[in-house]
């Protein structure tokens, strides 16, 4: 979750993420089952976390290089809403397949650390969002 003092992509000042695991697992952490409410058939999903501990790396380069960081936390409530019909994807190169919706996502979030707080304003611009039902790796089948 990135903050910029200016347009997105320029002069990044905060980069909130949970770190990269030694296995290479990228910014992915377990959350309580109840944090996610998803109904594929209904085309909706919500993910909500409150006061979730992570780190602020300042910018993307420092984050990817596992540079210095400070303790931080974020809270967010975000929702995926399907737009259009579901579509099938099968990618034998990367070995994943599934049925997906493109989606609109809305989010309200805040971040905080010692000496700094941020609260998002209503209204977001969707660049590209998707959700679906997937199988990959050993579960992949190109049938």
């Amino acid at each position, binding site marked *: 979750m990135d903050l*910029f003092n200016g347009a997105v992509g320029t002069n990044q000042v905060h980069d909130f993420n949970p770190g990269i695991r030694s296995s290479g697992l990228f910014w992915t952490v377990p959350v309580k089952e109840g944090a996610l409410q998803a109904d594929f058939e209904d085309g909706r999903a919500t993910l909500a976390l409150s006061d979730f501990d992570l780190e602020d790396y300042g910018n993307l380069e420092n984050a990817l290089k596992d540079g210095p960081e400070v303790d931080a936390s974020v809270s967010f409530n975000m929702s995926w809403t399907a737009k259009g019909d579901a579509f099938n994807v099968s990618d034998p190169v990367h070995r994943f397949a599934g049925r997906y919706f493109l989606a609109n996502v809305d989010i309200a979030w805040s971040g905080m650390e010692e000496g700094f707080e941020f609260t998002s304003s209503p209204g977001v611009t969707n660049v590209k969002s998707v959700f679906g039902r997937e199988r*990959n790796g050993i579960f992949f089948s190109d049938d």
Partner: protein
Amino acid sequence: MGFSGSHEHRLWHSLSRRQFLGAAAASAGALATGLRIPGVLADTDNLATAFPVPIPQGVTVHFPDATSVFVHHFPTVVPNDGLPISEPSEITDFNGLVGLCRVTGKGVGTTGPLSFQVDNGFMSGLYRGEDGLMHHGTFAFI
């Protein structure tokens, strides 16, 4: 790209605070299909008991200082018979629900107005853990 020892320790410590080693195994068998069970049957406090394995593919990010880092995220799109999307999951050997987004917006920080970009997602279902065993769990990509 891995953690330094102290950083990894800090992450584990952080997860410990959230009781990462909770008991989720009991639900694994019931979730063999990789689909979520109704909320009334799920223990909403459950946390996955093992970390998943990252997708093997990804992108190499190059920096101005001529260094680069391979990131297990967002591999190149391959043309397929549906709409072209990149692998949205961060974890491999996975069967379940996945979501990913990129949104931008604005807000107010202590220092004044700021712009944001959020690339968040989720994965919930059956997966192979680092221990080689199958588990069920819910993960956030933040």
